């Protein structure tokens, strides 16, 4: 029997949604400061309207649904899934008002792409977009990369037991430190320290490359936020190709890689435990999968003579691959140039995108830990067949500590992997229904669902609204890793059918 949710459930969900909405409004103050400093009047008004609506919705929700009760698991999951949709709608307001988006749906697409750290974009005439709007596009990636709820938790909440439920709901089931609030603050500390260092490195490189100092540091900050949070937006329409700089590409590769590794591993590296880097199952899997997928890409490109020199092949092939594997989506080629890459290289990139980076990082997709667990389970099963029946067999893997492989972990890894594969194929199917070829549909669908952002040219303002909506849903579901979305669906079903 399905139990109908109580009004109390709705009240608690509404109250916490309201709090997070106020938090989103407060974050819009950053582009407001930028617009004031640079004298951008219309962008300033766009963001004031955005803040006004966010605060209004937030205050209304908290006032109407006021409660002092804590969240349970179901409510926590629903708050997370709904707050991402609400954040998309509110974050899209200033972008839509900028006049650089054909419709509100396009602005919503951009905001979800930003929050989910995807990087697919529908902006028009990006090269004339204001600094404030550009900063917002990149800031939402930074907020989304850390997790919208984590931002609210670490900045606006002193501590409550429901915090962990929302933390898990945002696909972060690992605690770096014993307390969730401390964990989210550590994640912020890591991000802010890297932000300072990354912006400095990219800014100086920009100046050496001939950019004006202000632009160099503004671009540096934006590109850092996009790279570390494995987002993929860029302040210019050419993406990273705009800079025409090999050192700039190398720095972004390092930042993308840092963004793709587990925050727990960051903690160990910060405390001087560098051995963990070599022992960790995720790092080993990442090395293995990058090697295999790069081989596919390199052979594919070599066979077609797409890039006649080894350096070219590295700068184009390896960069796009790392960008796809880490879930960033930076491109140093035009989207339509994927046409000349051939099927094998495209399959290599699709595989890399589908696999993703580490758990508890800012990447999307299946993730290395799950792939590692599935491989270990396969190895265990093969061993079981080969050894005598009475032999006691156990498999271990190293992830921060030695862990015995259990059926529960394998089941969970396989379920999530299956869900991701389904999500990739559903998007590809919709793409094909809209008239695009299979491989390109799969490429774009995987890019959206795995929160990557590489595009082979399908994502554009002219693509059908149904495909835009599909990609928005894929980005949302892919970022939250299914559980909170399934809980929301269950809640809706219970509200309709429950007794």
């Amino acid at each position, binding site marked *: 029997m399905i139990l109908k949710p109580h009004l109390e459930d709705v009240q608690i969900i509404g109250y916490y949604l309201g709090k997070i909405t106020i938090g989103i409004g407060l974050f819009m103050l950053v582009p407001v400061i930028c617009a004031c400093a640079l004298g951008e009047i219309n962008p300033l*008004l766009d963001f004031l309207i955005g803040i006004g609506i966010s605060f209004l919705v937030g205050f209304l929700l908290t006032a109407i649904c006021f409660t002092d009760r804590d969240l349970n698991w179901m409510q926590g999951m629903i708050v997370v899934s709904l707050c991402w949709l609400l954040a998309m709608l509110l974050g899209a307001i200033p972008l839509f008002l900028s006049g650089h988006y054909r419709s509100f749906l396009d602005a919503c697409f951009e905001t979800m792409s930003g929050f989910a750290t995807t990087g697919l974009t529908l902006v028009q005439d990006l090269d004339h977009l204001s600094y404030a709007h550009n900063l917002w596009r990149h800031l939402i990636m930074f907020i989304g990369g850390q997790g919208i709820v984590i931002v609210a938790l670490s900045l606006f909440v002193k501590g409550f037991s429901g915090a962990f439920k929302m933390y898990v709901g945002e696909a972060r089931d690992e605690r770096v430190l014993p307390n969730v609030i401390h964990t989210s603050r550590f994640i912020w500390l890591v991000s802010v320290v890297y932000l300072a260092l990354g912006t400095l490195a990219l800014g100086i490189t920009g100046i050496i490359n001939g950019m004006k100092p202000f632009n160099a540091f503004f671009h540096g900050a934006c590109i850092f936020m996009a790279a570390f949070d494995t987002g993929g937006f860029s302040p*210019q329409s050419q993406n990273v190709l705009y800079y025409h700089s090999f050192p700039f590409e190398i720095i972004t590769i390092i930042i993308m890689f840092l963004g793709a590794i587990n925050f727990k591993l960051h903690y160990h590296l910060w405390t001087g435990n560098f051995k963990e880097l070599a022992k960790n199952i995720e790092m080993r899997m990442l090395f293995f999968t990058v090697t295999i997928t790069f081989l596919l890409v390199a052979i594919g490109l070599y066979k077609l003579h797409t890039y006649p020199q080894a350096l070219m092949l590295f700068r184009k092939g390896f960069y796009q691959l790392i960008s796809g594997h880490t879930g960033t989506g930076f491109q140093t080629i035009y989207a339509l140039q994927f046409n000349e890459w051939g099927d094998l290289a495209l399959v290599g990139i699709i595989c890399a995108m589908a696999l993703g980076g580490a758990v508890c990082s800012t990447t999307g997709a299946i993730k290395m830990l799950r792939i590692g667990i599935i491989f270990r389970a396969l190895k265990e099963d093969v061993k079981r067949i080969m050894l005598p029946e009475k032999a006691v067999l156990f498999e271990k893997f190293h992830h921060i500590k030695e862990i015995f492989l259990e059926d529960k972990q394998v089941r969970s890894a396989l379920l999530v992997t299956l869900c991701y594969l389904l999500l990739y194929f559903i998007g590809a199917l919709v793409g094909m229904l809209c008239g695009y070829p299979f491989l390109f549909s799969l490429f774009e669908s995987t890019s959206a669902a795995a929160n990557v952002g590489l595009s082979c040219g399908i994502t554009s303002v002219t693509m059908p609204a149904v495909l835009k909506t599909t990609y928005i849903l894929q980005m949302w579901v892919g970022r939250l890793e299914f559980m909170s979305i399934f809980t929301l669906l269950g809640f809706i079903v219970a509200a309709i059918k429950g007794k």
Partner: protein
Amino acid sequence: MKLLLPRPEIARQPLAANKQKPSCISCYRSTMLYFVWSIVFFLTIPCYAQPLSSEELIINAKQHDNQSVNYRGEVIGDIMVRGNYAWINVNDSQNAIGIWTPVQLIKDIQYTGGYSSAGDWVVITGIFHRACRQHGGDMDIHAATIVIDTKGSRLEEKPSSFKIKVAISLLIICLTATIIYFITLSYRKRR
């Protein structure tokens, strides 16, 4: 090749000559003569290439690789000087393409496109590279000539009166809501 199409007025010249009406064999001969003459004419005159769009260059990159092309667009972002050369990025409203140019060719460029300015529109003649060997495989054009087509300008920002009204109204409502919210909160806590 598309880039060597003659200007329309040049192409019309042989057609205009066809208006003469000689008879029989002489008519056939003269037609043949004009036909041969026109082929020779098209092959020998210096052609004025029409600017190609960025989309055409990207989609048919192999066809245009290492060929001289004309490309027209707005200079956007930064002019990145690297020694005696510089990178400029030129957007034709579809995509922006990187132009590698000697510094002296761009000394007349005053405005580059951004939020507060419309950049100079330039016509570039140069060699297009699908995957430039000198620049790590970038798709670019090595400029031989750059001509400023339309001057850019500073863009005056006019605040939208509608946005001002909406923003002020919303801020007043929010301020009131905030005050009511905190009063209600303190009342509830006391209770």
